[in-house]
C-alpha cells in the first residue's frame, strides 16, 4: 500500500514502526527491537499533539483555501496561532497583503452527537463554497464525527460533482495514532488526492525525458522545516550547479503541486516529514528521490548536494561549489570557534532535525551530551551512531518523547549542559532551569546550507555571551514537580512490554 491506494493514512506506528517512548543511551537505540519499541507507553503522560494539528498547520498555508474542521468547536481553535506564523511567512515571502487563513468549525453540539453530523458538513461545504469562492476546500475529520460514525468520504463524493472547486479531505482523528507526525502524511494524502488523483483534470501525464541541454528540475519538499531564508539558500546552491527548483507543497497552489509530478528528482530536506509523498512521486511518476540527509552542517550539506548532483552527472560542479562555500564559511566562523570549543549541548526537536543539528554543533567543536527526539523511526538510527563516532565514542542519553517536559527537566538536571537547543515550546523548560538556549528552528533565520552554519554559530555565541534573562528567571520560578521525581530515573514512567 502507499499514498495512492491508502483510503485512510495509516498511523506511523504501523507504517514505519515509529516509537514514542524510550529512554536510554544513544548507542542502544539501533539495537532495540522495533516492535517492542513501538509498543512502549507511559504510565504518566503529558499532553502531546494530535495529528490534526500538523495537518491543519500545513493545509492552512495553501493559498485561497477554506479549511473546514468537522467536529466540535475546539478542534481547530489553534488556527489563530498557526495563522500568526502563516502571516509572518507571507511577509517574508513578500506578500504583506496576503489574506488571513480561512477556517471553519462545523461546530457539532450535543444534538449532533446523537443525530450525526453529515448534513451539517454537507451544508457547510456548500455554504462556504458559495460565499467565499475559495480555490480549494479541505475537510478535516476529527474524533467526534469519527466516533459517531459520520461517513466523510460519502459526503465528499456526494458534494464533489456539485461544485467546481477542488475538494480535499483528510482523516486526522487524534485518537487514531499516537504519532502525530502522521499528520504530515495526512496532509500529503489530502493534497495528492485532491489536486492530482481526483482532480477535475485528472492526474497530469508522466513527463517525457529531459531534452538534451535542458536544465534538470528538482522538487524540494518543504513542510514546516524551512523558512524563506532557508529556501533561498537551497535554491541558490542548486541553481549554482545548474539545477532548477520547485518548492512545495506548503504555500503552493494546485498548479505548483501538479507541477511537482513533472520534476526530474524529488529532494527531501527532512526524511521524517517527506517519505510518504516522495514515494508516491517515485512509484506513480517514476521520479527518483534523495531521501536520507538534511542539509544542515557541513558534512550533511556536502552529502546532500553530491547526492542530488549525482543524479545528473553534475558531481564536478557540486564539488567545486562545495570547496568554495566551505572555505568561505570556515573563514566566517573562525572567530566564533574559541567560544564554542568543548561546549556541552543538549538538543530537542523532531528526531532528524535534532540529529543533524547535533552534527553541525560537533563541526563547531561542541559536544553532544543529551538529545530528545519527538519520535523515533529508522531514518534516524544511523545518525545516532554517527554522532557518537564523531565525538570519539562518547555516548549520551536520549529521550524519545512527544514532549513530556517532566522527563526533559529531570534529564536536564542530571546532564547539566552548557547550552540547550530546542524546538519552539521546548526552550522554556531549559530557560527556567537557567541554561542558555537557542531555537533550533524559526522561520526567520538561516539554518540550512552554508549560511545556516555561519548563522547558528553566531547565534550560539551570542546566547552564551549573555543569558541573564534565563539565569535570573531560574531564580524566580517555582518548582512544578515533587522532589522525589528528581530522585528517580527520567524514564521511570516508560513501560515497555518486553520488560
Amino acid at each position, binding site marked *: 500500500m502507499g499514498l495512492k491506494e491508502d483510503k485512510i493514512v495509516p498511523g506511523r506506528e504501523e507504517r514505519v514502526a515509529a516509537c514514542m517512548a524510550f529512554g536510554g543511551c544513544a548507542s542502544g537505540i539501533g539495537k532495540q527491537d522495533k516492535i517492542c519499541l513501538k509498543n512502549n507507553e507511559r*504510565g504518566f503522560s503529558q499532553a502531546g499533539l494530535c495529528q490534526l494539528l500538523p495537518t491543519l498547520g500545513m493545509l492552512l498555508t495553501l493559498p485561497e483555501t477554506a479549511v473546514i474542521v468537522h467536529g466540535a468547536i475546539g478542534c481547530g481553535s489553534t488556527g489563530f496561532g498557526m495563522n500568526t506564523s502563516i502571516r509572518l511567512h507571507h511577509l517574508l515571502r513578500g506578500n504583506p497583503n496576503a489574506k488571513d487563513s480561512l477556517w471553519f468549525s462545523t*461546530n457539532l453540539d450535543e444534538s449532533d452527537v446523537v443525530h450525526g453530523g453529515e448534513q451539517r458538513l454537507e*451544508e457547510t461545504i456548500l455554504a462556504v463554497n458559495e460565499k467565499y469562492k475559495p480555490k480549494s476546500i479541505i475537510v478535516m475529520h476529527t474524533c467526534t464525527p469519527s466516533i459517531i460514525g459520520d461517513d466523510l468520504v460519502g459526503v465528499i463524493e456526494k458534494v464533489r460533482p456539485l461544485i467546481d472547486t477542488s475538494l480535499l479531505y483528510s482523516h486526522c482523528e*487524534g485518537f487514531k495514532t499516537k504519532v502525530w507526525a502522521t499528520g504530515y502524511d495526512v496532509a500529503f494524502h489530502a493534497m495528492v488526492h485532491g489536486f492530482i488523483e481526483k482532480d477535475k483534470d485528472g492526474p497530469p501525464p508522466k513527463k517525457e525525458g529531459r531534452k538534451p541541454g535542458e536544465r534538470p528540475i528538482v522538487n524540494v519538499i518543504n513542510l514546516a522545516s524551512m523558512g524563506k531564508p532557508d529556501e533561498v539558500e537551497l535554491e541558490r546552491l542548486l541553481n549554482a550547479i545548474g539545477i532548477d527548483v520547485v518548492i512545495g507543497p506548503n504555500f503552493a497552489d494546485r498548479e505548483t503541486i501538479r507541477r511537482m509530478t513533472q520534476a526530474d528528482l524529488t529532494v527531501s530536506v527532512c526524511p521524517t516529514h517527506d517519505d510518504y509523498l516522495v514515494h508516491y512521486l517515485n512509484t506513480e511518476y517514476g521520479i527518483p528521490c534523495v531521501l536520507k540527509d538534511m542539509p544542515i552542517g557541513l558534512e550533511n550539506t556536502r552529502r546532500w548536494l553530491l547526492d542530488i548532483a549525482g543524479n545528473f552527472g553534475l558531481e564536478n560542479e557540486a564539488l567545486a561549489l562545495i570547496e568554495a562555500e566551505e572555505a568561505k564559511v570556515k573563514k566566517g566562523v573562525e572567530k566564533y570557534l574559541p567560544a564554542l570549543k568543548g561546549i556541552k549541548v543538549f538538543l530537542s526537536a523532531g528526531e532528524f532535525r535534532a540529529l543533524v543539528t547535533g552534527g553541525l554543533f560537533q563541526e563547531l567543536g561542541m559536544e553532544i551530551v543529551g538529545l530528545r527526539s519527538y519520535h523515533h523511526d529508522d531514518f534516524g538510527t544511523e545518525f545516532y551512531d554517527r554522532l557518537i563516532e564523531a565525538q570519539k565514542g562518547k555516548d549520551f542519553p536520549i529521550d524519545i518523547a512527544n514532549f513530556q517536559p517532566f522527563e526533559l527537566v529531570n534529564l536536564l538536571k542530571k546532564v547539566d549542559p552548557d547550552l540547550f537547543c530546542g524546538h519552539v515550546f521546548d526552550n522554556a523548560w531549559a530557560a527556567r532551569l537557567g541554561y542558555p538556549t537557542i531555537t533550533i528552528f524559526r522561520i526567520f533565520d538561516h539554518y540550512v546550507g552554508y549560511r545556516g552554519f555561519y548563522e547558528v554559530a553566531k547565534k550560539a555565541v551570542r546566547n552564551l555571551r549573555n543569558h541573564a534573562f534565563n539565569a535570573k528567571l531560574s531564580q524566580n520560578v517555582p518548582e*512544578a*514537580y515533587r522532589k522525589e521525581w528528581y530522585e528517580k530515573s527520567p524514564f521511570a514512567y516508560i513501560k515497555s512490554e518486553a520488560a
Partner: protein
Amino acid sequence: MSTHIERPRYQCALGGALVTINSIERAVAIVHSAPGCAASADGAATVGGGYWGTTLTDGRATPSTNILEREVIFGGEDRLAEQIAATLEVVDADVYAVITGCMTDIIGDDVRAVVGEFRKHGKPVIVAETGGFKGDSTVGADFIWEAIITQFVEKGLEKDPKLVNLFGFVPAQDVFWRGNLLEIKRLLGLLGIKANTFLTPFDDLKDLKEASRASLNIVFSDVHGVKPAEVFEFTHGTPFVSEPLPIGPTATEEFLRRIAAQLKVDDETLERVIADEKAYYYRFINPLTDLFTDQDFQRFGVVIGNANYTFAVNRFIADDLGWIPYFTAVTDLLNEEQKQAVAKRLETIPADLRPKLIFEADTDRITERLNEQLAQEDDPYGTPISPAFVIGSNLDRPLAAGLKAAFWGVSYPITNRIVTDQFYAGFRGGLHLVTELISVLVSNR
C-alpha cells in the same frame, strides 16, 4: 440550532475548563482525552490571549491520558486511574482536576467513579465532564467552577461580612482577566472589602478552599459564571449579584456605590475613594482636552466581542468618552435567556445612544449584518458613520479596514501585542483604554 462558524473566537468546553484550572495557583488539570485536545484547547488561548503563554503545569506539561483507539473501544477508566495515581506522585499541586474531552464523554467512561476512589482515600481530586461538543469555553468554565464549588470548597464555614468572591471571568476569553481582577480587588480593598480573585498568579489556593466564608459573590457578567454562582448559593448559602464589568469613572462609581450599599461601607470612606480615583482619571485626562476637542476625536463606535466586554466598552465610550455607539456584535454562543439578559443590560444605555445589537459568532456574518444596517441609512455620500472606530478582536481588522475606521483590539483573540498586567476595569482601566484608543488616532503622526 447550531451552524458552522468561521474562525470561532473561543475554544471548546474542555478548553474553558482547562484555562480556568491553569489560572489557579497550585491547581493542575488532568485531561482525560485523546492526545491533541489539551494542546488545541490551551494552545489557542495561550496565543490568542495576548501571548498569555504557559507556566509549569500547563501547555505541553498538562497531565493527559492521551487515549487512543484501544481506549475508545474498550474504555479508558483504567488508563485514567493510572494517570491520576502517577500525577499525584510526580506533580506537586494541591488540587487535581480531571476534565474530559469529547470521546470520553461519548464512550461514557465513568470518570466520577474513578475519581471517587481517589477521593475516598482523601486525595484532592475533583472531576468535571467537559466534552467539547457541550459548548464553548465559557460553558466549560462554568462546568469546572461548579465542580470546584461542590467538590473542593469547604462547607459550613462562618461568613465574613467584608469578604466577597469575584466570578464571571474566563481566562483568555477576557484577555485582561488578571489585570482586571487585581484592579477590582484593589478598589474594593480601598473600601475595606477583601475580595478573592482566584484566577491571578497571586492568589492562594486556601482562599478558594475557604471561599464559602464570603458573604457576597459578585459575578462580572450577566451570563458567564451565573450558573456556578447559583450553585454556590445553593451549596454554601452565599448570595450573588451580577454586575457589568465596570470600565471608566461613570460605571465604576456606580459599581462601588451599589457594592458599598450592599456591604454597608461607611459613606465617608466611599466618597473619599470615589473622589480620589476620579481625580486620578481626570488629572491625566484634563491636559488632553485641547487634543480631544480641536482634533474632533469623537467617533461612531462599532464594538465586537463577548457579552461582558461589549456592554462595558459601549457604556464607557458613551458615558465617559462621549462617543456614539452605533453597532455592537456579541460573539458568544448564548441561549435565548442569556441573550435576553445581555439585551436587557444594554437597555440601560439611553435609547439615543444605544447601539444596534446583534448576536453573531461568525466574523463574516458580522460584516454582512453591519453592511445591511449601513444600507438602511439615508446618506447621499455613503459615509453615515464616518469617522468610526472599531473596538473588537484581531479578527475584526478587515471589517475596520472596509469602513476606513480606526481599530483597536481588546477582545479575544489578540495576537498583535502581549498582555501582562494591563487592565480596563475601574477608573484607571478606563484611563488605559482611552489612552490606547487615542494613541491609535495619533499613531501616524
